[in-house]
């Protein structure tokens, strides 16, 4: 018993010391916990890496984030870990994290939710985040370069013939994206024509038949299948993308560049554009 209480006491002292040390080193700075990889990227691009004290497992860019404390997964955040980090602000995404944001707000934390769904919203959101974390100048620069880049890309591709693009995000069942989705807009802005303009949801089940009927010129395949397997699909043989082997995988275009709404979107647009018009 005595030994245990000594141990506990020692542990407590260590904890206190650790806490003081941390506070001392970060005095005056904001302490931010970021639960969405998109927002972590945006904040990092505004020289905000040192402000972040906790992230979720999916926040993997820039690589420095790996050194931060992890507070769980995107869809399964450990509230206690978030609170233990004593953040001044928490940044969350929409959708699955909406309920979580409400829970966190109940504990008295300042929670900010951002969920960029359109390319043109992205610069505005970056400016907003910049003012929240006192990085206005950096935010203005990043936002301006994005606005300029998007406009340039759109004017470049406006008059070109648009190749038909099929983006496969899941194989069993087949799923793709609509023009309403963020990545759908990215494809269109990079000069492609997404074959599923309208779907029930941004990301939805589709039928193989509709893909074959649409005759895509290019397939972007994020469904973890091999080239051989997609080339030998029954009934897909007459599709131009299959015949010309214009099929691109994660290694050809990093999904994070076009699926995440971040400052890297511009790079994503340019790479897609190069795939569409080699």
């Amino acid at each position, binding site marked *: 018993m005595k030994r245990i209480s000594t141990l506990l006491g020692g542990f407590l002292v260590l904890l206190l010391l650790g806490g003081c040390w941390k506070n001392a080193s970060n005095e005056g700075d904001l302490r931010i916990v970021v639960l969405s990889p998109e927002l972590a990227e945006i904040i990092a691009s505004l020289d905000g890496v040192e402000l972040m004290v906790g992230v979720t497992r999916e926040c993997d860019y820039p690589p420095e984030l790996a050194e931060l404390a992890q507070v769980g997964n995107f869809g399964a955040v450990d509230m206690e870990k978030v609170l233990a980090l004593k953040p001044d602000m928490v940044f969350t995404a929409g959708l699955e994290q909406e309920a979580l944001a409400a829970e966190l707000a109940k504990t008295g934390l300042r929670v900010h939710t951002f969920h960029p769904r359109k390319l043109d919203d992205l610069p505005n959101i970056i400016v907003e985040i910049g003012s929240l974390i006192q990085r206005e100048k950096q935010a203005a620069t990043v936002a301006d370069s994005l606005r300029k880049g998007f406009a340039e890309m759109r004017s470049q591709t406006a008059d070109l013939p648009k190749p038909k693009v099929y983006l496969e995000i899941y194989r*069993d069942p087949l799923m793709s994206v609509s023009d309403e989705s963020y990545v759908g807009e990215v494809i269109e802005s990079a000069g492609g024509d997404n074959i599923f303009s309208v779907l029930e949801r941004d990301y939805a089940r589709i*039928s193989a038949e509709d893909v074959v009927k649409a005759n895509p010129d290019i397939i972007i395949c994020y469904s973890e299948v091999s080239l051989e397997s997609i080339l030998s*699909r029954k009934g897909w043989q007459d599709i131009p993308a299959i015949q010309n082997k214009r099929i691109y995988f994660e290694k050809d275009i990093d999904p994070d560049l076009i699926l995440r709404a971040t400052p890297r979107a511009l790079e994503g647009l340019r790479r897609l554009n190069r795939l569409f018009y080699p």
Partner: protein
Amino acid sequence: MKRNHLFAILLAFAGLLVVLLYLFGGGADGNIVLQLRLPRLILTVFTGMALAGIGSVYQLMLANPLAEPYILGISSGSAFGSILLGVLGFSLLMPLGGFIGATATLFLVWHLAQRKGSFDRSRLLIAGVIAGMFFSAGISLIMYLFQKDTMIILGTLMGNLGHVFTRSEWQFFLILAGLSLLIMVWLYFRSTALDIMSGGDVYAGSVGIDVARTRKEIFLLTSLLIGITVSYAGIIGFVGLIIPHVVRFFIPSGQKRVYPWSLAAGGIFLLFCDLIAKNIAAIELPVGVITAAVGCPFFIWLMLKK
């Protein structure tokens, strides 16, 4: 007109109509019909046949009108095995996982159903329900741990006939489907024995049937069949429950006649449900939802009429 003739004519007519609509509905070129719709039709008909056939066999063998693979937990066990291999990245091995899951569940349920050395039918159902719950919990756990594979898991839980085949997968499927057909034929030749067994183990034993062995063989081979269907089509409920009852309504006597008609009616019924699932909404619905929605009211009507 006799009831069984009426049934045969109705079934043939409905079958023809459904097949034609399924293959040529909405206008499609030859490539789509041959390469996409025909494989899906074969998968669907095969699945419906297997489910209805197994249902009719189980109901007779366990002398319980509610017996079907789903109630006995075998579907869930099979889905668990198949999903587990799927999320670990061995999608081609999913039928094997399905078979192992089905056999393991059956083995477990079988042993729980033994009492004082003999086989107890009501214990079997209880054990089945418990096993089903256990594996459902396991599937929920996998779903929680592998969030990015939620869709494949949902497809397995609610039925998904829209599997995209590559050429080698299709050949593999044809081999398994051929094997399944052999099992279905083998089950047909057990019809008389099953009829006799439904009169009680003692009676069946007295006319020279090795009851324990027949039961074991049937359970083993049907779990192989369930493993194959679950890994390609997921869990589809109600077909195995309803179709044999409907068939018995028209053809009251003799497993030797009920069984083949159940196969035919099961295949056509599932094809009909898949046709609805594909076309009723802009987005394809899970076929398990349709079999329940079509099957339940029909079953209630049949019960009230009786």
